[in-house]
């Protein structure tokens, strides 16, 4: 990467809190955001079903309206509200609020599914209530690019603005693309990240149908793990050309060192070993981390039997059996649930806070070692002091799409 790219702002809204600080504090303190909730399909559906889920802690809309001093309300689907809230926080930290950011600013944010709460309501009207019309703003609220358009309009971003979609790796690809826009000279600032709001009655039934969801909780790399727990939320980072940040006296929080991307080209729900290893290798090579003493690895760590076994093997394949032991591995989905397309951004924010604090947050729900996952340096029980000055954030998606991101402080 020619000119260094720095991180000057962080924002997060998830089951752990309505800000990056709240989310980090809860992750550090093993204060889980996963609880059992009822999901009611309403009078036209089969009824209530109960699942553990990581629903956003607090009222993101009210927080955003308080920050903006005006109503946002029902004008956006929750997945766009989450993105906007996170972007507002990140830009505030970066000292970039109160101005139009202009054509040298970009916004790239990912999501896997689009605004399905809005879509569900629209379809319930048609197919359930047999109403002749759906809400006239259904299309702009549902569309995959609604979050980035909302951010662009709110903050005057007139440079490159688009959404990325690669299922559970969407925000990872968004961050990598934002970095590439800066490296390629198309922008000086990029608001990057992602969001998802899939914890709807229909969304939950869809995951249940795939038999990927746990009934008991998210237990990454643990014996007895039985699936993922759906979360929701969004996170944003402000990436900035180092010289641009320096010229305006912005505080540098971290450095974006590079990203790696690969496709398994193999199976809808089963991961390959080669794809994740390739993405991690690319990111580590770009960042000069292949031989680093200690890296904080924020694992994709969904808690599904297949992912965690494969990811553990991928980490050992890349760093070697002995090398892998040097790197503390965290899996924060055990605390905030799987934010699907927003996950990589939520993980990145927590990983950067962890590097800053010199503390790795614990993996929750762990019952004991699983021989299938082999030896890894898992952070268990409580937050552990770390020496790592760099982090690797993994995001591996259904359909075999992989992304890994490297950051340093």
């Amino acid at each position, binding site marked *: 990467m020619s000119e260094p790219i720095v991180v000057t702002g962080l924002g997060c809204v998830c089951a752990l809190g309505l800000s990056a600080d709240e989310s980090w504090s809860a992750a550090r303190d093993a204060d889980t955001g996963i609880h059992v909730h009822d999901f009611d399909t309403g009078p036209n559906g089969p009824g209530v079903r109960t699942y553990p889920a990581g629903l956003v802690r607090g009222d993101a809309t009210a927080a955003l309206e308080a920050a903006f001093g*005006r*109503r*946002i*309300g*029902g*004008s956006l689907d929750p997945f766009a509200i989450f993105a906007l809230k996170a972007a507002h926080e990140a830009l505030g930290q970066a000292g970039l609020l109160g101005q139009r950011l202009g054509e040298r600013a970009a916004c790239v944010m990912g999501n896997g599914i689009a605004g399905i709460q809005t879509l569900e309501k629209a379809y319930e009207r048609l197919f359930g209530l047999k*109403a002749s*019309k759906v*809400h*006239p*703003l259904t299309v702009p609220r549902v569309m995959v690019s609604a979050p980035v358009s909302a951010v662009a309009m709110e903050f005057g971003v007139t440079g490159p603005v688009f959404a990325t979609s690669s299922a559970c790796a969407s925000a990872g690809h968004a961050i990598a693309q934002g970095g590439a826009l800066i490296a390629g000279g198309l922008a000086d600032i990029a608001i990057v990240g992602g969001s998802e709001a899939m914890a709807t009655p229909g969304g939950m039934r869809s995951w249940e149908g795939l038999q990927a969801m746990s009934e008991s909780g998210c237990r990454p790399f643990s014996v007895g793990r039985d699936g993922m727990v759906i979360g929701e939320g969004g996170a944003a980072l402000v990436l900035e050309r180092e010289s641009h940040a320096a010229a305006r006296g912005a505080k540098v929080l971290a450095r974006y060192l590079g990203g790696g991307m690969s496709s398994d080209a193999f199976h809808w729900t089963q991961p390959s070993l080669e794809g994740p290893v390739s993405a991690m290798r690319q990111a580590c090579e770009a960042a000069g981390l292949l031989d680093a003493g200690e890296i904080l690895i924020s694992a994709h760590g969904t808690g599904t039997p297949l992912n965690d076994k494969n990811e553990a093997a991928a980490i050992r394949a890349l760093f070697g059996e002995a090398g892998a032991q040097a790197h503390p591995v965290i899996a924060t989905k055990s605390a905030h649930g799987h934010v699907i397309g927003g996950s990589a951004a939520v993980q990145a924010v927590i990983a950067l806070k962890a590097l800053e604090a010199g503390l790795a947050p614990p993996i929750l729900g762990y019952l004991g070692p699983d021989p299938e996952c082999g030896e890894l340096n898992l952070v268990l029980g409580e937050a552990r002091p770390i020496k790592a000055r760099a982090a690797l954030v993994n995001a591996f998606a259904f359909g075999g799409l992989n992304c890994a991101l490297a950051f340093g402080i």
Partner: protein
Amino acid sequence: MSGRDEELIEIIAEEALIDRAKLDPAAKLEDIGLDSVDLVSVIFAIEEKYGIEIAEDAFDRSDTLGVVLAKIDALIDAKAA
């Protein structure tokens, strides 16, 4: 103002995300800050609540809120009659 007009104004405030205090019957829609996108949401919500059909060109943004309320009242009364 009738109770129904109060109800309609509440719907407009809710759908168009406009402060209730700004919704003066003497003010024009364009001065209230009700743009065309807001207007389709308002029309949709009112159609839903009262079971009426409002033509796409029923209102002009230069209409006052009072004129709009009167037109909607007439449609609701016509349905009831």
